[in-house]
């Protein structure tokens, strides 16, 4: 009897610890760094201005596209905005803005005040589209090439150093 109790306790403990371990790996799914090198399969984003849709083909003609997820209510987005303005001056890259869970009027005011770096502006009012890109907080940015391969992923506001990295990547190829 005692042996059975002992074995049961050990199995129970292994089970609990095993689940903890599994959950840990699960939460690392959020670590979107692992997406680098993957291809974006299907892009379907609704334009900010009307209901037209941007798809894969729209981005294949650019050498590079930076997909930037932002919102007017997000303070770090304001911090990274000068970097985006700077980047929009580069020739090799176009910036696709995804306005995340935002109000149109606030978003437009944000762009009016701080400048509009976006070649394409789309909206994701309920945040569902962004989930497909592995986004769980904003700001985040994804750099893709013309084959829609993810080259780099930036979690949090883009810094000056990130900006230099991007410029280096797009001018080297």
């Amino acid at each position, binding site marked *: 009897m005692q042996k059975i109790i002992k074995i049961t306790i*050990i199995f129970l*403990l292994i089970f609990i610890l095993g689940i*903890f371990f599994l*959950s*840990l790996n699960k*939460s690392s799914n*959020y670590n979107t760094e692992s997406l680098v090198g993957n291809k974006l399969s299907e892009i379907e984003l609704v334009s900010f201005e009307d209901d037209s849709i941007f798809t894969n083909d729209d981005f294949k003609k650019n050498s590079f596209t930076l997909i930037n997820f932002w919102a007017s209510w997000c303070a770090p987005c*304001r911090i990274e905005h000068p970097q985006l303005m700077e980047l929009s001056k580069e020739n090799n890259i176009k910036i696709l803005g995804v306005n995340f869970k935002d109000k149109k*009027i606030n978003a437009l005011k944000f762009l009016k005040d701080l400048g509009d770096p976006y070649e394409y502006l789309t909206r994701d009012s309920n945040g569902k589209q962004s989930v497909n890109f592995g986004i769980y907080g904003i700001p985040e940015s994804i750099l893709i090439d013309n084959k829609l391969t993810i080259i780099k992923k930036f979690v949090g506001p883009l810094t000056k150093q990130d900006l230099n990295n991007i410029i280096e990547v797009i001018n080297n190829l």
Partner: protein
Amino acid sequence: MLSNTGNFLLILSILFTSFIIYQSFACLKKTNDMIFKSIYKISLLQSTTILICFFTLVGAFMVSDFSLINVYQNSHTLKPIFYKISGTWGNHEGSLLLWVIILTIFSFLFLITNKNHPKNYRINTLIIQNILILGFLFFILFNSNPFSSISPIPKEGLGLNPILQDPALAIHPPLLYVGFVGSSIYFSAAMASVITNYSGKFFAQSIKSWVIISWSFQTLGILVGSIWAYYELGWGGFWFWDPVENASLLPWFAMTALLHSLLVLEKRNILYFWSIILCLLTFTLSVTGTFLVRSGILNSVHTFANDPSRGIYILLFLSLMIFASVYILFTKYKPTNDQINSNSKETFILINNWFMMFYLITVLLGTLYPIFTDAISNNKISVGPPFYNSVIIPVVIIFLFFMAIGPKVRWIKNKFLNFKDLLKIIVGAIAVNFIITYFFKSYSLISNLIIISSVFLIISTISDAIKKPKINFARIISHFSFGFLIFFIGLNHNFSIEKDFNLKLGETKKIDNYNFELKDLKLQQYDNYKAVIGKIQINDLSTNKKRTLNPEIRIYDNPQTLTYEASIKTNFFRDYYLTMSNIDRSDYYNIKFQEKPLMIWIWISVVMLSFGGFLSFIRNAKNN
């Protein structure tokens, strides 16, 4: 510079700790009953080094040394000095350093205060405690180093999360840590006790003070966290059965059970292995809680940043701890034939333990179940208050009755139970319940029972205090305030009023017995935030008494965040609780108003509960 100093002190601490372990093993080989003087000296050095290391980090926060990543990420030059200091432990890395401080200081104090216990037992405790310390020091140095430097040095820091900039939260972690990290010492002592066969009464005496002190601090820590949630999170509640709150409650249940079973061990020399299991369980649950909140499995304000490597380390550490304790228990366990009479204090204390285990298992299941379903079936569910309330509340009623009767019963064998007295008390409790129902309004059956059982406990404890010639004040106060706590929670829950409406400047709205008027809005600039402060006048039409509340909408600069500060007017009878939030593109403000009766008494009850613990600590120290 501070980065080097900090790292040097960390490495020095590792060396001291390793040396203590080495010397302790050498000391075990000697047959005499003396502990090497060097062990005392190095232990003192070890504690001092860790303290200096911690104060180096505090210093870095005070002078805003952004060459440290930790300071850069969690501080800002404009932050008030008080929050610069509390920012030291308001993040994962810094708080781990606080962990190690408590591990070390407790280790040192246990060594110097238990001189009348055998050498082998003390040395083994020291070895195990120092292995724990070593594990955490390595974790800090290689995985969560608060002294990692950043180059080029940023000019400004990112700031501390504004909702953490709060006096209650500044003291919440240290209090809670003394509680659950403090439990490490009786984890080590329990292991040492089993290894060296130092069991029974004397073992109980050697750890009793440590259990009481950690229990008292844990109680205060939970209280302060709860008060913070009450006024900061803006929901008006004080306990949400959030997994993170549960993580602090689980070790509390185990500690409470241990506190009581130690009484039996001390008096009757029985329940030894059960007490050992509780010692091991308490600290294991503490580390499990830390794992759950730090690994990012659970999301909450305590999840500082997601870093799976951190989780793996704590999980590995936890697994080692669990299997080492299980191994030692299994190999050393001897079945005992404890004779317990069913009508004796021992039985009632055992019943207390069963109840505590029931609460523990319920809360543990509720906390882990969503994690399990997510891992096994990808099914995301959440277990909320309805589960806990419906499982725990009915059981609390029975528990309170046992809690009232238990202390009246004698050790070994009780002659008879004075049913006449008990009957008087229960009639009194029912009468109090009727008065409450009469003056307020009727409420559910379960609430009636909660009030009756808690009043039963209160009256019964008071009658104990009056009748018995030699009374244990610590016990009286703790039991009495626990009855009070449940009583006030019951009343508060039943008679709270909540209103939700929109108001614009100058407008007056009448709801039930109240008139609300938004009289003024002003913008005020503070050091690290600006605030929109509302002036809302509440006129109680039944008494014609006017009260002004000033809720705030705060806009913090670093990091830029919006928070809503509740305005709370407290008196001995009720709290008026009001929050205000702006509505986009509108002149209206959303107002949430709550009237919460006897709120302050819930806090007072918990303070008294832990005061009972401190009294017991002093009493125990005097006796020994």
